[in-house]
């Protein structure tokens, strides 16, 4: 017992501090002579080190002549400061010829002890993942969807056979995810959340592809090309203070991690369309654009932009849009810049701006910047601006036209739910305030103007959901609204159907634009959890309500079509010939379904006939006995027909009462 106590006490013994983790080695420095060495030291400390904390020790070794040797050592007061500095200045360039190469002093020992003989790394065994896109080759081009149900404890992937969804083999798993299901953008992977991190599943049997460690991961993001996965966890520790980690999906390796310094909306890092760049805003200060696969800053430095507020990538080109807040002497601006050239291709000055929001058209054809403008601005007691009389302007950048002209639309009402029509040139929004009645307004971007094409009044709508192929749209009142669904064909702005899914919390189109699914999620409402599947025109096709406590319904995305616009146009032209073939196939498949039933029934029938045959054999064997017992053959109803006696029965058809008042006198 005393020994144990001793152990506790010993643990508290002050340890000699091994000052390793707060020390950094900076190499790649220029070699300077003794005259300039002090200037170099000051320069390094000023530019790179002082801003990260207190440098308690700094030393730049020299040779016997007083020339620097190209590296320096520094110690920070805390390990954290050293780590911050390392992340920030690694790879920073001093000048054209010199780039800082920084590493931890503790690493130095490790590197120094490394074998002189280079041993080739062990070849990792090749793991055949199979065909990760097998689901796209399904006979009838059915899509898959995932459902998280039974209060989140069971997840099932289904084939969407309309009216009769079939669970995919071995894709119903208990506790598959600890919070939600997340499909990768092209549908290749299914990501599941766990306390330890993220797991990716794929292939025909949804086998585990890879695991990514990030304790208590809360939210994730994929690059659009699916090559990279970004994870965020609020659980940071001293040893691992980076809340955001970036992984390479194929290898599972963590490529880079970041501190999460300021409150921001997820995703903090926004990806360019091909995954070549990712960027974030340092609010008010700079744009940080990183490139892959090096995961370092483009041109090794941030793009300093004073008062920058937010950025957003074009979904189809390497163009970065960002906006700058207005200051006392400068108006607000929206700037479009190409990457990696950093060439400005469009700029718009905006006056009296309170706030901006950027909405890209899904095919990158337009950028709409929603600008909240004010008529008067006051300053509060603590110098925060207060805006009075806000109205909204929409600045539409025509990306495909020469010099990117910008057009303006003004809206005086309050605005929400701005959405672009995919593959089209319309946009829609909800205008007005709930108490006075909301309207849904549709605009069309024409060659020379932007036209307001339709106003739908008195619509209790809080979500505008476009079909991913355009033309059809659903105006929905989700959650607190009554679950009303209005299906509109925007080619003629006619309402094709009005439906209601009371209490619906989510709405999602399938990737082909054929189906819309509304779900009442158990996460929001505890009763009537079900998903309803509608056609694009609003016909209710079927309800997924046999699963208990559905939490989430998620269609599996598809990679974009390989067909060119030209080819698509041709197919639409020849729709009739294709229709005939598909109708024939549909007919065959419906009879195929009952074929199984027919086979089952045929089996039952033969079994029954066999059973009956045995019984009939016994029956026939007893015939003699029966004849003896009754004296006649009564096996069939007409077996003793010769004994039948014909009988005529008379039934009165009509009974009539006639009153006889006087009896005739009878002569005596």
């Amino acid at each position, binding site marked *: 017992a005393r020994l144990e106590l001793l152990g506790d006490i010993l643990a508290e013994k002050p340890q000699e501090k091994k000052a390793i983790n707060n020390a950094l080695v900076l190499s790649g420095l220029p070699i300077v002579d003794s005259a300039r060495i002090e200037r170099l030291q000051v320069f390094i400390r000023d530019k790179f080190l002082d801003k990260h904390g207190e440098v308690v020790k700094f030393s730049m070794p020299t040779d016997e002549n007083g020339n620097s040797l190209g590296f320096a050592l520094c110690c920070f007061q805390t390990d954290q400061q050293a780590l911050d500095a390392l992340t920030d200045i690694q790879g920073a360039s001093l000048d054209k010829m010199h780039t800082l190469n920084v590493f931890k002093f503790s690493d130095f020992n490790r590197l120094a002890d490394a074998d002189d003989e280079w041993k080739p790394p062990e070849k990792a065994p090749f793991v055949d993942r199979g065909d990760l896109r097998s689901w796209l080759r399904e006979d009838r081009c059915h899509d898959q969807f995932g459902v998280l149900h039974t209060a989140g404890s069971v997840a099932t992937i289904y084939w969407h056979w309309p009216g009769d969804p079939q669970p995919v083999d071995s894709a119903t798993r208990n506790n598959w995810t600890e919070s939600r299901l997340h499909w990768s953008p092209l549908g290749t992977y299914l990501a599941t959340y766990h306390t330890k991190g993220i797991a990716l599943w794929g292939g025909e049997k949804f086998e585990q592809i890879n695991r990514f460690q990030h304790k208590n991961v809360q939210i994730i993001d994929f690059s659009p090309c699916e090559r990279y996965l970004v994870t965020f966890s609020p659980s940071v520790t001293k040893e691992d203070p980076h809340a955001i980690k970036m992984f390479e999906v194929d290898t599972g390796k963590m490529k880079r991690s970041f501190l999460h310094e300021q409150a921001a909306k997820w995703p903090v890092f926004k990806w360019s369309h091909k995954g070549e760049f990712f960027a974030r805003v340092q609010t008010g200060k700079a744009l940080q654009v990183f490139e892959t696969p090096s995961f370092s800053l483009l041109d090794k430095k941030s793009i300093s932009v004073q008062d920058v507020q937010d950025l957003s990538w074009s979904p189809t080109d390497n163009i970065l849009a960002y906006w700058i807040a207005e200051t006392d002497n400068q108006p607000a601006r929206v700037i479009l810049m190409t990457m990696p050239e950093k060439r400005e291709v469009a700029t718009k000055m905006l006056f009296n701006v309170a706030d901006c929001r950027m909405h890209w058209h899904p095919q990158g054809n337009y950028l709409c910047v929603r600008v909240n403008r004010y008529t008067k601005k006051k300053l509060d007691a603590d110098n925060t601006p207060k805006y009075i009389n806000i109205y909204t302007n929409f600045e539409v950048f025509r990306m495909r036209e020469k010099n990117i002209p910008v057009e303006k639309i003004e809206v005086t009402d309050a605005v929400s739910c701005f959405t672009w029509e995919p593959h089209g040139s319309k946009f829609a929004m909800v205008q007005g305030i709930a108490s006075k009645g909301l309207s849904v307004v549709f605009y069309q971007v024409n060659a020379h103007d932007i036209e307001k094409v339709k106003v739908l009044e008195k619509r209790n709508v809080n979500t505008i959901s476009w079909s991913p192929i355009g033309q059809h749209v659903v105006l929905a009142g989700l959650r607190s609204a009554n679950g009303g669904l209005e299906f509109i064909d925007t080619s003629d702005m006619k309402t094709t159907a009005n439906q209601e899914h009371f209490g619906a919390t989510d709405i999602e189109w399938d990737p082909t634009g054929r189906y819309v699914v509304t779900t009442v999620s158990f996460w929001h409402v505890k009763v009537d959890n079900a998903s309803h599947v509608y056609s694009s025109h609003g016909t209710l096709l079927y309800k997924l309500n046999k699963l208990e406590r559905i939490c989430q319904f998620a269609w599996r995305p598809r990679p974009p079509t390989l067909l060119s616009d030209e080819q698509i146009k041709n197919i639409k032209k020849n729709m009739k010939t294709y229709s005939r073939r598909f109708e024939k196939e549909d007919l065959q498949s419906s009879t195929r379904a009952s074929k199984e039933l027919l086979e089952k*029934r045929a089996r039952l029938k033969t079994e029954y006939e066999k059973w009956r045959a045995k019984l*009939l054999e016994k*029956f026939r064997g007893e015939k003699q006995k029966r004849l003896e017992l009754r004296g006649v053959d009564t096996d069939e109803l007409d077996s003793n027909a010769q004994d039948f006696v014909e009988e005529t029965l008379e*039934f009165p058809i009509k009974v009539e009462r006639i009153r006889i008042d006087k009896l005739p006198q009878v002569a005596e």
Partner: protein
Amino acid sequence: LNQIMKPICLLGHMRSITQVRFNRDGDLIFTCAKDPHPSIWFALNGERLGSLVGHNGAVWCVDCRWDSEKVLTGSADNSAKLWDTETGKCVLSVDTNSAVRSCGFDFAGTSAMLTTDKTMGYKCTILLYDIRQDPAGQPACQMLVPESKITSAVWGPLSRFLITGHENGDLCQMDVRAQKVIRTEKHHKGAINDIRMYKDGTMFVTASKDHTARLIDSYELQLFKTYKTERPVNSADISPLRPHVLLGGGQEAQDVTTSGAHVGKFDAKFFHTVYEEEFARVKGHFGPINSVGFTPDGRGFVTGGEDGFVRLHSFDNDYFDFEFE
């Protein structure tokens, strides 16, 4: 099954119907109820031939001999009576110790079997009488049923044994003359309310409180098919013409609601014998259906209900053409 011709309603009883039976030729219908007067009707048009007067209590069971000459009834007045069909005269009456629950003529028509309820000191008993003897006072033989009382009984093939259904769901073959239980099977979880033989006696259907009816062979009591419903099944019959089984049932007392509808909500259910799938329902009764039966030629069916009504249906052409794919 969309349309069935409007049924003929036989309104002859003031109280709930307990059994409906046809004679072998199918031209007469025998109905008994919780009132003391069973009736005989012409199946052709529903006209009453007459009533059998003599009992003093509810009549639980009725059977007609194969030659249609004699009728047998069993009553809660602790007696069973033999009647002349044509005249309605009671030719024989035997007293029992307790209510007569089931009765039936044997294949030859020379013996009658009765089963009595278990009450007050008297065990459930099976009694066999030789009805050629006149006056028949004493049973030719009898057998006590010690455990679960018999709720339904029929003669087996060639009348070698009785097939009995019990309150606990048991199904037995009883050789009364040898005083022996040949075999017992437990296919049902609840009381067996009715047993009806198929026309050739090789198999029968049981109707049970456990919401199912089952098709079973007479020789080995082997279960072959099960027809599932949501309510206790009071009676079932097998069509002599088509692979169909007819079920009539009840509703738990607490579910009964008053309905002002002209046509009642309680329905007779039709199942496919082999596929065990329900394919039709016929509404009409205002209360649970207590007894069902196909006409011997399979061209119609009769149902008797708790509401005191007996409804005689004829199938239209669709019924005979109707096929499962």
